[in-house]
Every structure is written in structure tokens, then in C-alpha cells.
């Protein structure tokens, strides 16, 4: 039984293009996936492809336009505001910007304490021990309690953000590009911390990133998103080693690698142009204007996400091996 089930999730933003004309930006279009307990699933794609919107819709920071979300068999997508507030302990979020995610006027004790206080019946002393316990879980110590956010580095703030998310004992954490604002050395620390939390406490992560190298390191499954749709999905190692969708290939070839020559003797794929406007997505396969393999078929017919040779490796390209 998967922990998180997303079924045909859609998030459209209305845009007034003319006086009486309304069009929709399809930020997330028909996305379905499952996430198991104690699993880290990676979600990659370039900026503006809708991966943050997907993450935010799952925890209902944005109201999904359509589709169903189940967490632990509980339908999250149509809970009322009040019920949702009580259930929020099951799913938490870590934010991209460690500098904006902490209230500058509250000490760390306060920031974490208010969450502990709201969701438990601990007394003051027990709360204090709980806060210290949470700080130790993320590699901080008691001496940091009375400090204000501006006295911390970016990596430390991200740890505090994680501690705040852990304070309610969640089952799922949506990490919205938690490392992209950090130094490379600090990125590794945070990623390893997430892996530690997963293995020790059995918490699942939806790890949103745009760096495939980081995702390969920490995730078991990876999903590649393009223009609001998932174009490739599979076991992380397999997708990185043997990408099937031309977009994934292009993404991978953009990853700098010391041993490039050994690994890929192919020429580097450079994508031309920008992501098309989600207001008027291209007909057929939305990737066809930038794709090297595109043929007539791609311009009129839309490929579906298909299980290649029933291997659990999915791709939405007519020219993937095993596409049916």
C-alpha cells in the first residue's frame, strides 16, 4: 500500500488574455504517481516546468484544480480547511529559500516550540526536551536554542527548517528544492541528513530538484517533468544509466562529469530555445519543437507515459525502446 497516491492531478491557472477571454496555464497536467513508505522520490525538470506547483498542490498549499490525492488512504484532496489543518501533521514541507523560511523575529526555540506546542499536549519542560531532541536529530545543539535566524548560515537554517517539519512526526515531507540555494559542500550534508532521517525514522520524501546528480545519489525513484507532465519515470540508477526520453538524455548530458568521455562517448545534446509557453503548449508531444528525434507523428499525436517492456521504467516518447 503506497503512502502517497496521486491520481490525475491537475493544476490550472486562469489567465485573462483578452477582455472576455480566459485561458489556462496548465502548470500540472494529469500527473499520477505513487510513493511508498520510507522512500525518497526525486522530481526533476527545468525551471517553470511545474514541479514546485506539483509539490505544493500535494500538500494543498495550492488548491488542485482536479484529481485525487491520498495520503495513508485518506483522501486529502477534498478535506475541508478545518479537517485539513488537523491532518497537516502527516505531511510537511521544506522550503527552497533557507533565508525566508524562518520568521526573523522568533528565536529557534520559539519557531520549533510553537509547532510542538500546537500539536502535542506536552508541558513546558517536556516541550523543551522535545525541542532539543529535534535539534539533535538534525545535527544542531542546545546552544542554538536562543538564537535568531540571522545568526545562522544557510545550511544551518535549512536544518532548522527540517527540524520544524519533523516536529509534528510527519509521514511525508515535500522538499521543494531544499539544496539548490546552498553551497555544494553543504548540499551533500543536507542530502545525507535527509537520507538519515528516511532510514532512521521511516519518513518519505518527495525531493524536488533540478540537479539529476543529487537526485541519483539519494532517490530510489526519479520522475522527470516537462511542461506540467511526467515524461519519464523509473528507478533512479536505471533512468540515469539508461535514459529513454530525449528530454532526460538532454538533461543528463548537461550534468558536468569528470569522466564524461568514459561514460558517454556521445556528443553533448544541447537543447535549443526555451520551454514553450504553457499557455499555448505545442500540439502532440509538447517536447517536439526542441527534440532531435521529432517526426511528423510527434507533432499531431501525444505519447502517453508507457511502461517500457513492463520493466517499471516509464517513458512518454514514441521512440523509446519498448514503447507500446
Amino acid at each position: 500500500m503506497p503512502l502517497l497516491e496521486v491520481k490525475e492531478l491537475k493544476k490550472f491557472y486562469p489567465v485573462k488574455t483578452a477582455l472576455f477571454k480566459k485561458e489556462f496555464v496548465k502548470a500540472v497536467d494529469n500527473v499520477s504517481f505513487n510513493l511508498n513508505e520510507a522512500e525518497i522520490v526525486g522530481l526533476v525538470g527545468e525551471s517553470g516546468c511545474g514541479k514546485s506547483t506539483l509539490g505544493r498542490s500535494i500538500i494543498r498549499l495550492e488548491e488542485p484544480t482536479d484529481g485525487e490525492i491520498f495520503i495513508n488512504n485518506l483522501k486529502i484532496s477534498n478535506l475541508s480547511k478545518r479537517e485539513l489543518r488537523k491532518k497537516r501533521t502527516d505531511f510537511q514541507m521544506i522550503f527552497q529559500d533557507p533565508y525566508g523560511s524562518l520568521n526573523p523575529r522568533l528565536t529557534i526555540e520559539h519557531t520549533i516550540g510553537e509547532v510542538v506546542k500546537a500539536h502535542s499536549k506536552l508541558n513546558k519542560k517536556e516541550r523543551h526536551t522535545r525541542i532539543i531532541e529535534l535539534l539533535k536529530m538534525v545535527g544542531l545543539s542546545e546552544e542554538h536554542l536562543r538564537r535568531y535566524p540571522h545568526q545562522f548560515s544557510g545550511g544551518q537554517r535549512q536544518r532548522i527548517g527540517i527540524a520544524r517539519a519533523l516536529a509534528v512526526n510527519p509521514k511525508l515531507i515535500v522538499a521543494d528544492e531544499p539544496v539548490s540555494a546552498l553551497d555544494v559542500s553543504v548540499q551533500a550534508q543536507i542530502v545525507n541528513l535527509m537520507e538519515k532521517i528516511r532510514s532512521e525514522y521511516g519518513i518519505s520524501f518527495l525531493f524536488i530538484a533540478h540537479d539529476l546528480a543529487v537526485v541519483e545519489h539519494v532517490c530510489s525513484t526519479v520522475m522527470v517533468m516537462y511542461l506540467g507532465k511526467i515524461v519519464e519515470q523509473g528507478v533512479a540508477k536505471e533512468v540515469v544509466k539508461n535514459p529513454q526520453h530525449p528530454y532526460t538524455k538532454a538533461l543528463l548530458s548537461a550534468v558536468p562529469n569528470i569522466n564524461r568521455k568514459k561514460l558517454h562517448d556521445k556528443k553533448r545534446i544541447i537543447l535549443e530555445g526555451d520551454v514553450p509557453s504553457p499557455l499555448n503548449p505545442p500540439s502532440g508531444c509538447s517536447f517536439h519543437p526542441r527534440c532531435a528525434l521529432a517526426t511528423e507523428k510527434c507533432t499531431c499525436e501525444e505519447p502517453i507515459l508507457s511502461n517500457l517492456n513492463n520493466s517499471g521504467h516509464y517513458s512518454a516518447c514514441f521512440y523509446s525502446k519498448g514503447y507500446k
Partner: protein
Amino acid sequence: MQVKLEQKSLLISTFKQLLSQKGSAICLFILAMAVALTFTQEIYLFYCNTYNLTPIYEEGNMVNSFQPPSAEHWFGTDYRGRDVLLRAIAGTATAVKVGLIASLIAAVIGVLLGAIAGYYGGIVDDVVVWIYSTFAAMPTLLFILSFSLLVSKGFLSGSLYDFFCGCAKLFNTEPAMFAVYLGIGLTGWVSLCRVVRAETMKLRKTAYAEAAVVNGFSSPYIIFKHIIPNLFHLVIIYFSMRFAYAIMTEVIVSYLGLGAQSSPSWGVMISDGQMRLWRGIYWEVGAATLFMFVLVLCVNLLSDYLRDILDPKLKR
């Protein structure tokens, strides 16, 4: 854009910074004296009422009327032989009281409506914007004048008038003055409301406000705990600006004979004194104007200093 605060409490750090500059320290000192005077005056009035004494600024002898400034009466005496200096000092208390209460009313309305409109958006926002646009379109002074006219000249129905008298008693003042408090308070919140609304719209999109939503906190909790504390510098700045404005408005309304009736007021002093200016009796108008000038200048300078300290956009 990141607002970094080095000190713990906003108020304490602001005070420290104000005291570190000569100009702002002087202004702060004068204002503190005026506020202290206001509280002393309230206590003194209470004392006089309990023991049925006449306050010293009301004591006068017709024999001594219109005496020029001398060692005994520094600013001379008025038509009833009362000491002008004492009346001007008592007038300070009246003015500061108006300033404090009226700008407090304005600040509370402005912050609450602004934060609610900015946070919830949608129809709530539309309604608030409609209300403050209506208030912004009204000529402020006319509104205050008609409001205090209604109360002081007996145009209100009996029960409503009793209610007003009760409220006025609560603030230890006369009904007409209470109408001035309300009038200034009800018209002064618009600019603050606008700024708070805009700032709230910005702050509710910050990651920490969203984190609070994800953590399952209710909207009112987020507004009071995470949003208002982070825009409080704006409240302080606008409060000080409103304060100076409220003092001046009180003087104008009292000058026109609609505000203070029996309590000492600079406006009443100026209106009394102007009739005898042609006879060379300058001291009554002079004293009131001088006191008002000093206080309003201090408050205005102080609000400028506060803006320099608190507004992140002006920070170097």
C-alpha cells in the same frame, strides 16, 4: 530583500538608536516630557475632582487680566487673569492626549483591516478597499467638524448622547473632545491600512508564513504571530506621523469652537487671544503657537528619524 534585525526587541533597539543621535535624543526627551505631563495632568485632575479643588491653571483674578509677561507670569495672563504659561502647559496635556488616543484608534483600525484584507484577499479585500477609498475621498476636516458638531451641539438623540457621554467619561474628557478623538481616529487609518495591506500581501507569500500554514496554524494565529510583528516598523512610523497630525487637527477644531469646551486647549487660547491681538496682547497667541510649534516639530522630526531607522528601503 531581507530585513535583518540585529537586536532582539524592535522597540528596545529603536529606542537605543534614537538615543544615540543628538537630534533624535532631544526630540525624544521633549516628547517623553510631554507624555509624562499628560499622565501627571490626568492624575492631578482626578485629585482636584476628588477634593473639589480648582486646578491651578483655572485660578485667576479678573483684577489681573491681560498682564504682560513678567517675572511672576512668564507669558502674562489672559482675560480672566489666568496664567498663560500654566494654561499652555495644561494645553500640552490635552493635545498629547488627543494625539495618543486618536492615533491609537487609527492604528488599531488600520492594522486590523489592512492585515485582514491583505491576508484573505478576494471579497474581503474588495470590501476593505471600498471602505478606505470612501474614507479617503471624504474631506477629513469636514468629517471631523461635522462629527464633533453633532455631539457638542446636541443634535444627537438622548440615548446616543448618553452613550457618548459615557465613552467620554471613560477617557476622562468632555463629549465634544471624545467626538474629536473618534473623528480623527476614524479618518486617520486609511494610509496605514493601505501600507499594511500591501505589506501583508507580500509577507503572506514568504516561506515562513507558508510554513506556518503547512504546520496547521489558523489564519488569525498566522496574522498575529507571523505577519503583524514583521510589519510593526510601519505601524510605528505611521503612528508617529498620525500623532503630529492629530495634535494639529485638535487645535484647529478647538479654534473653531467645536472641540475643547472647558478643558484647556491651544486652539481655544488662540481663538481667545486673536481678538485682542490688535491691542498688542500677543502673549496668549504667542505662547500657544510656540508650544504647538515645538511639540509638532519634535514629533515630525522624530517620525523622520524613525523612518530612517526602521524603513528597510532607506537602510544603507
